[in-house]
């Protein structure tokens, strides 16, 4: 392969993906229309690298593609059986770690975790369910925080800091006790400056942060991932698909 300095590209599953200086493999792939599964990545926010769904193989090692800098020498594999099996296990880990009861969740059909499970042919939890006890927070007039469904992706944390200039959220605890905190004296969401129009309130990939009057407004059939898989739709929120 010759390296075109003006129009550099790398190989993703054998296909050339062009990139611009400073882009990560994830950014370049998404720009080129190649989907790499992910949950904690958002193009407008700093990369995080925590969910590990975007693992790709290069040089016999796995990397998170959202933090892997693109370069012309890269040969990256993403859609292999082995990697997708690992991704499926990661999604299963997220399911057994929290309390993800899809039938009673308002976000079902719009949920990116659920969509990822469909995408990766997940049928069951595979590991033992933990059924943790987690605190809910209904103190905010417009927004409900259901920690049962939180996957610690920190999208809301980052959106609040980077986009809303507010710093409403942070993580507390360690290990599997890690949990989302509201940065107020009481620790309650209602005592923060979070507003329904904030990016942080409209970025949750699962049903952990819900805007109160927006649940069940769309019938099942019209929800984001009812007809179409996440690899075709992309990681989208309900409002982003109209």
């Amino acid at each position, binding site marked *: 392969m010759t390296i075109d300095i003006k129009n550099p590209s790398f190989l993703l599953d054998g296909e050339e993906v062009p990139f611009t200086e400073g882009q990560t493999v994830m950014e370049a792939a998404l720009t080129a229309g190649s989907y790499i599964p992910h949950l904690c990545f958002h193009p407008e926010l700093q*990369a*995080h*690298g*925590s*969910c*590990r*769904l975007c*693992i790709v193989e290069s040089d016999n*090692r*796995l990397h*998170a593609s959202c*933090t892997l*800098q693109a370069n012309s020498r890269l040969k990256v594999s993403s859609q292999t059986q082995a990697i997708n099996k*690992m991704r499926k*296990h*990661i999604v299963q*880990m*997220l399911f*057994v*770690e929290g309390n993800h009861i899809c039938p009673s969740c308002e976000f079902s059909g719009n949920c990116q975790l659920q969509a990822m499970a469909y995408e990766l042919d997940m049928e069951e939890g*595979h*590991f*033992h369910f*933990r059924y943790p006890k987690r605190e809910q927070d209904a103190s905010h007039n417009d927004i409900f925080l259901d920690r049962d469904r939180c*996957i*610690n992706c920190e999208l809301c944390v980052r959106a609040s800091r980077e986009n809303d200039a507010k*710093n409403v959220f*942070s*993580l*507390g*605890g*360690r*290990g*599997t*006790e*890690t949990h989302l*905190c*509201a*940065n*107020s*004296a*009481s*620790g309650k969401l209602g005592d923060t400056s979070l507003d329904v129009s904030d990016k942080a309130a409209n970025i949750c990939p699962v049903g952990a942060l819900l805007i109160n009057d927006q649940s069940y407004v769309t019938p099942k059939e019209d929800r984001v991932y009812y007809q179409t898989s996440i690899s075709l739709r992309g990681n989208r929120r309900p409002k982003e698909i109209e």
Partner: protein
Amino acid sequence: MRVQRVGPYPIAKPPPAQRLIGSLLANKRLPRHALLQALGMLQYHCGWISPNHLSDLSRFAKLSIGEIKGIIEFYHFLSLQPPKPYCIYLSTNIIDRWQRAGLDLSLLEENENVDVKQTSCVGMCDQGGSLLINGLPLTGLTQERIEKINDLILRQEPLSQWPQDWFTVEESIHVKGPLLTNSIQPGDALNKARKLGEAGFLKILQASNLRGRGGAGFPTHLKWKACIDARGDQKYIVCNADEGEPGTFKDRLLLTSYLAKVVEGMCIAAWMTGASRGFIYLRYEYIYLLEKIQATLSACREQGVLDSATFDIEVMLGAGAYICGEESAMLESMEGKRGIPRIRPPFPVTHGLFDKPTIVNNVETFCNIAYLADDGLQAFIDNGNAGSRGSKIHSVAGDCERSGIYEYPFGSTVKEMLHGCGGEQAQAVQVGGPSGKLVLRADFDTPVDFDHVSSSGSFMVFGPGRDLKLVAQNFLHFFKDESCGFCTPCRVGTQVLAQHFDRVCEGLESQHEWELMNDIASLMGQASHCGLGHTAANPFIDWRDNNVTADSLSAKPEFIPVFDLAKATAYSRSLREENHDN
């Protein structure tokens, strides 16, 4: 910070925050990076972070209480719960458990004046039964002493009135190599390095092939060169004294008795890179060393080795988190945040502490630098072998006659080391702690070096009667307790793996269970964010590879239920029986 003994905790009348953390405040403001230091001091002096102190901190640091709580919850020595007058921590490390075997601690557990909690290894594996009380180590436990402790706690006798010899940590060095015998006149190593010039000493460093002693073995000259080349108006030198790998206590010795040498090594790093500030990140478990370290640093200032105009060193305290031994997590912690490993690259050498170029090296690595500068290249490379030059200090503990410190040239075999410590009977040795490797008797000829079995300095000896399955279980629980929780494979994987391995230990292993564990181990090893996750399944993998064959696996039942019906219905059965009794 003064480390006078605190106990009983001043629960009724806690000192005002300002008095305890005044030295950290500038114009009534607490700089962000000083937050963890402030929390550590409040914890040490009060036994918890009280709501009053929390709101003081929130005001001083201009951070919300919610956010500060999130940081407190990350570090297990920091507590938000009102304390009892005393707090005891017992190490969960397998060697410490064995050292305490035969001691009945129920007296203390039932004593209402003391909380008895658990923590990971406290670096006292060579001290007999030991514990931390109100932050300080108490060694050489006997049943008689436990009873006396219990009385003192009942009477709420101030810790300063307790027999002071209980608090001594005796260093027992059994084999001294060049590192532990060489004595440096203050400033000598730095002067000798200076004579060679920066380029000259870097060449020596490269020729020595010195590799980091913290476990990863990264070539020191590459790290230093990268930091020297990095652009930055300010650079930092950080000494990693967060000796957290269970079974390791060699840095404790170096900090106690060889700190001048460590300082000299840091000074050389500062001179090479132009750094004017250095830090020692000390694990909270070693808070008892703080005064001694401060005194040595003062002496270095008097001798002119350190001075605020060119290069000075401060101590920063951790607060209980194994992950902070990972260099980028340590930097986060030093900045007053939760100790989550950073995304790398960029590496600390270009974007380190406060985003400035930073060299992070282990305590022992800095010692080696000083030794290399003082005694020269030839003396240094006379020890070890081509891939692993120099010598290594080992913390030897467990089932052997003489636990303590041993310095051996790299390439010494496990057998030689066992001979040295009177552990010839061992059935296995864990080299490099839980994240390292279990070496079985058949492999005792294996050299301990970077090319064979690499070590961060922990050498745990397991005698013939020990159940290695329980050792693996202990290590897996250690990782479960210490995973930082950032990435999915490690956060969930360590939990699930420990849970499944518990079932193996109960004899409830099925083929199905093994398939799950294999999947988890492979995922954690490949897909985790940092080294902790990559190595956290090692105890399982070692156990599996040493004990499970295709034949033994196919002989196991295909499936075993996860729960026991009798146990699961015990409560509702008891209700029914109550009913009948009425």
